[in-house]
C-alpha cells in the first residue's frame, strides 16, 4: 500500500542526517562553530519524523500498517529491476525509533564528551552518516537497497573506529573491522545473487510476501535452496553483528571514541544482523537446518562473549564482550522462529537502552579518570560520580535481569522460548542461555564492583569528577529506558504490534516460570561470586596470573590466534607459494628459454671461424650429402 501523509516523506529520515554529514564534511572548518549543534539537530529531526510516522502508523488497522514509498528506479537492466524504495512497517519503524532516539541521545552526549577534541565537527559528520546509513538499511524495501545501507554502515564504522587515526592501534582496529565485515558482506551478496537467480527479484514484497502469512515466493522454496540462502544471510549477519566466527573485530573496535562504541553496540551496526534475520524470517522458516545453525551460532556466541567479558580489565572491552553475548541471545531468539522474533526485537530495543547507557556511563567514568580504561585503577567512584553511578547501576541491573527491569522481561522471554523449543536441542540451547545469564550477572557485577565500589585505586594525579550536564542528561534518559523499556514492550503488546510482520502464536506473559526462577537463582549466584572476589576483598592493581580460563578470556578466547593460524598464515603461505611459482615457474620458463637460445647460438657462432677454406670444406660436405641423398632417394 502506498504511504500517505508524513510517511510519504519517509526519505526525510535518511535525508536529514545525510544532509548533516554532507554539510559538515563539505563545509570544512567553516562549520566548526556549529557543527555539533547541526549534527544533533539533524539526528533529532529524524527522530521527530520517525515519531510522527509511528503515531500515524498507530492510527491504521494492523493489516494496513505496511506502507511503501517508491522513490525512483534504481537499477533497470533487462529483467533485473531494483527500485529505490522504502518500506515503512512495524518492524522498520521499531528500528527507526531506536536508531534515531538512542542515536540522538548519543549525539547530545558527544557534545560534552568530544568538547576538547579539535576534530569534533568531523566526528559529528560521521555520526550523522552512520545514522543515515543505518536508517537506509532498515528502511530499504529490497535487498539491494538494504545492502547500500549495509555498506554505508560498514564505511561509517570504519571512519569512526579509526577516528583517532594517528593512533596506530585505532587505525588497525578500523581496518580489521572493515576487513572482517567484508567477509560477512560476501555472504550477504552471495545470498542476494542466489535469491535473484532463484526468484528473479530482490524485493521484500515479492520474496517475503506481505502480512503474517508470508505468501511471497519464499514459501515455495525448496529446502536445499532455502538452507543455502539462509546460511549465506547468516554469514552476513555474523559479520555485522560480531557473531562467531566473525566476532574478532568487535573487541578491537573499542579503539574508537566511547560514544562510537555506544552507537555501534546499542543503536546501529551490530543490530543489523538481527534485523536481517528477522526480516528474512520467511526464508529461514523454510529450512530447519538454517534456523538450527542460527540458534547454535547465537548460543555459542552468547557463551563466548560472556566468558570474554569475565576476563577483561578494560571496562570498554568487558562491555564489548557483553554486547557479543547479548546479540548472541538475539540471534538465538531469531533462530527459534515464532514467537522468538518478537523477543529478539524486544531484547534488541531494551539492550539498545541499557547498553548505550552502560557505554556512555563508562565514557563518563573515563572522562573523570583521564581516559584510563583499566578498571583496576578505578574503585569507590560512587562517592564522586553520583549520577553516573546511579544511571550505570540501573543499566547494570537491567542487563543482569534484575526483576521488573528491562532485561528481566526480554532475556527471560528468550531463555523460556529456547526451552520451549523442545527436544534435545531446546534443552541444550536453553541451558546455554541460562548459564549465559549467570555469567552475565558475574561479569557485569565485576565491572560494577571494580568501578564503583571497593577502595580507591586511583593513580596519583587523577581527580575524578562528575561529567557535565550535557553528558549526564542522556545518561538519565537512557537509564529510564533501561528500567522501563522491556516491561513496556513485553506487557504493552509489542508482539501484537509486530504481528503483521513476523506473525506468531500469541503468548500471554507469565510472571513466574521455572526458567525464570532458575535464571534468577543463577543471577544471584553470579552476583554473589563477583561480590566475594571483587567486592568483599581488595582488588589488586596488578592483574593476577589467573586460571587457564581467565588467560583465554583475556586473549578473546584465542579468536585472533585462531584467525591467524587458520587464515592469515595459510594465506601468507599461499602468497609466498604464488610468488615463488611466479618467480621460478613462469619467469623461470620464459627466462630459461631465452637463456637456452642465447647459449646455443653462442656455441653455434663459434663455427664461423673466418677461415674461407673450412667454409669451403663444409660446402663440399654439404653438397656431397645432398648428392648422396638424391642418389638414395632415386634408387
Amino acid at each position: 500500500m502506498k504511504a500517505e501523509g508524513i510517511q510519504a516523506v519517509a526519505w526525510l529520515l535518511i535525508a536529514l542526517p545525510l544532509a548533516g554529514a554532507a554539510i559538515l564534511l563539505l563545509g570544512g572548518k567553516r562549520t566548526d562553530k556549529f557543527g555539533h549543534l547541526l549534527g544533533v539537530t539533524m539526528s533529532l529531526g529524524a527522530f521527530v519524523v520517525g515519531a510522527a510516522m509511528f503515531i500515524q502508523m498507530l492510527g491504521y488497522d494492523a493489516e494496513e500498517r505496511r506502507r511503501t514509498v517508491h522513490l525512483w528506479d534504481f537499477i533497470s537492466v533487462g529483467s533485473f529491476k531494483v527500485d529505490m524504495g522504502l518500506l515503512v512497517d512495524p518492524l522498520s519503524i521499531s528500528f527507526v525509533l531506536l536508531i534515531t532516539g538512542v542515536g540522538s541521545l548519543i549525539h547530545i552526549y558527544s557534545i560534552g564528551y568530544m568538547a576538547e577534541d579539535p576534530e569534533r565537527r568531523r566526528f559529528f559528520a560521521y555520526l550523522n552518516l552512520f545514522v543515515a546509513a543505518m536508517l537506509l538499511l532498515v528502511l530499504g524495501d529490497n535487498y539491494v537497497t538494504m545492502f547500500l545501507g549495509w555498506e554505508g554502515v560498514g564505511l561509517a564504522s570504519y571512519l569512526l573506529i579509526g577516528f583517532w587515526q594517528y593512533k596506530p592501534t585505532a587505525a588497525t582496529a578500523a581496518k580489521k573491522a572493515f576487513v572482517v565485515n567484508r567477509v560477512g558482506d560476501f555472504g550477504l551478496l552471495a545470498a542476494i545473487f542466489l535469491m535473484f537467480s532463484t526468484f528473479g527479484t530482490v524485493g521484500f514484497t515479492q520474496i517475503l510476501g506481505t502480512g503474517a502469512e508470508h505468501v511471497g515466493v519464499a514459501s515455495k522454496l525448496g529446502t536445499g535452496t532455502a538452507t543455502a540462502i539462509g546460511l549465506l544471510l547468516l554469514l552476513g549477519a555474523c559479520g555485522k553483528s560480531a557473531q562467531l566466527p566473525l566476532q574478532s573485530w568487535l573487541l578491537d573496535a573499542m579503539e574508537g571514541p566511547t560514544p562510537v562504541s555506544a552507537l555501534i553496540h546499542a543503536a546501529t551496526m551490530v543490530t543489523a544482523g538481527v534485523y536481517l534475520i528477522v526480516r528474512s524470517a520467511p526464508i529461514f522458516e523454510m529450512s530447519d537446518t538454517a534456523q538450527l545453525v542460527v540458534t547454535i551460532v547465537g548460543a555459542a556466541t552468547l557463551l563466548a562473549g560472556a566468558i570474554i567479558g569475565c576476563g577483561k580489565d578494560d571496562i570498554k572491552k568487558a562491555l564489548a564482550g557483553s554486547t557479543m553475548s547479548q546479540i548472541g541471545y538475539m540471534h538465538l531468539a531469531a533462530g527459534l522462529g515464532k514467537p522468538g522474533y518478537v523477543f529478539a526485537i524486544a531484547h534488541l530495543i531494551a539492550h539498545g537502552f541499557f547498553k548505550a547507557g552502560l557505554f556512555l556511563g563508562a565514557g563518563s567514568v573515563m572522562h573523570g579518570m583521564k581516559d584510563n580504561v583499566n578498571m583496576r585503577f578505578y574503585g569507590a567512584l560512587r562517592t564522586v560520580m553520583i549520577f553516573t553511578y546511579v544511571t550505570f547501576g540501573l543499566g547494570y541491573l537491567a542487563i543482569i535481569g534484575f526483576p521488573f527491569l528491562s532485561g528481566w522481561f526480554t532475556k527471560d522471554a528468550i531463555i523460556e522460548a529456547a526451552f520451549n523449543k523442545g527436544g534435545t536441542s531446546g534443552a541444550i540451547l536453553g541451558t546455554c542461555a541460562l548459564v549465559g545469564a549467570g555469567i552475565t550477572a558475574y561479569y557485569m557485577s565485576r565491572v560494577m564492583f571494580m568501578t564503583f565500589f571497593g577502595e580507591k585505586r586511583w593513580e596519583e594525579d587523577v581527580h575524578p569528577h562528575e561529567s557535565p550536564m550535557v553528558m549526564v542528561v542522556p545518561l538519565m534518559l537512557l537509564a529510564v529506558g533501561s528500567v522501563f523499556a522491556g516491561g513496556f514492550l513485553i506487557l504493552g503488546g509489542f508482539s501484537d504490534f509486530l504481528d503483521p510482520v513476523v506473525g506468531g502464536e500469541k503468548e500471554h506473559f507469565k510472571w513466574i516460570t521455572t526458567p525464570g526462577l532458575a535464571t534468577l537463582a543463577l543471577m544471584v549466584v553470579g552476583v554473589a561470586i563477583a561480590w566475594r572476589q571483587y567486592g568483599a576483598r581488595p582488588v589488586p592493581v596488578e592483574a593476577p596470573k589467573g586460571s587457564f580460563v581467565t588467560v583465554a578470556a583475556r586473549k578473546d578466547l584465542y579468536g585472533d590466534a585462531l584467525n591467524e593460524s587458520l587464515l592469515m598464515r595459510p594465506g601468507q603461505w599461499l602468497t609466498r607459494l604464488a610468488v615463488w611459482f611466479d618467480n621460478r615457474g613462469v619467469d623461470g620458463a620464459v627466462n630459461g628459454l631465452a637463456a637456452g637460445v642465447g647459449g646455443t647460438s653462442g656455441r653455434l657462432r663459434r663455427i664461423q671461424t673466418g677461415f674461407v677454406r673450412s667454409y669451403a670444406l663444409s660446402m663440399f660436405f654439404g653438397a656431397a650429402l645432398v648428392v648422396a641423398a638424391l642418389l638414395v632417394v632415386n634408387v
Partner: protein
Amino acid sequence: MSPGHYLALSAILFTIGAVGVLVRRNAIVVFMCVELMLNATNLAFVSFSRMHGNLDGQIIAFFVMVVAAAEVVVGLAIIMTIFRTRRSSSVDDANLLKY
C-alpha cells in the same frame, strides 16, 4: 673416345680443383683451382650435351664462362686489395670476418 671418358676427365679435373681449394693457402692458387672446377663442369655439360643430342648443356656452358669471367674480375680485384693492405695473399690471414 666415348663421352664416358670425357666425364671421367671432368670428374678428375673437378676433384683436383676441389682439393686445391681446400689445401692451398695462396689466394691466387685457390682462385685458379676454382676456375679449374668451373671448367671441369663446363666439360661435363658439353659432354652431356653431346650424349643427349641437344644443345642445352652447351648453352649453359656459355653461361658458366660468362659468370666465371665476371667472377675473375671481382675476385682478382678483391685479392689485389687484400694484398695491398695486408701484404699477404694467404686466405688464412684474411680471417677477420668471424664470430
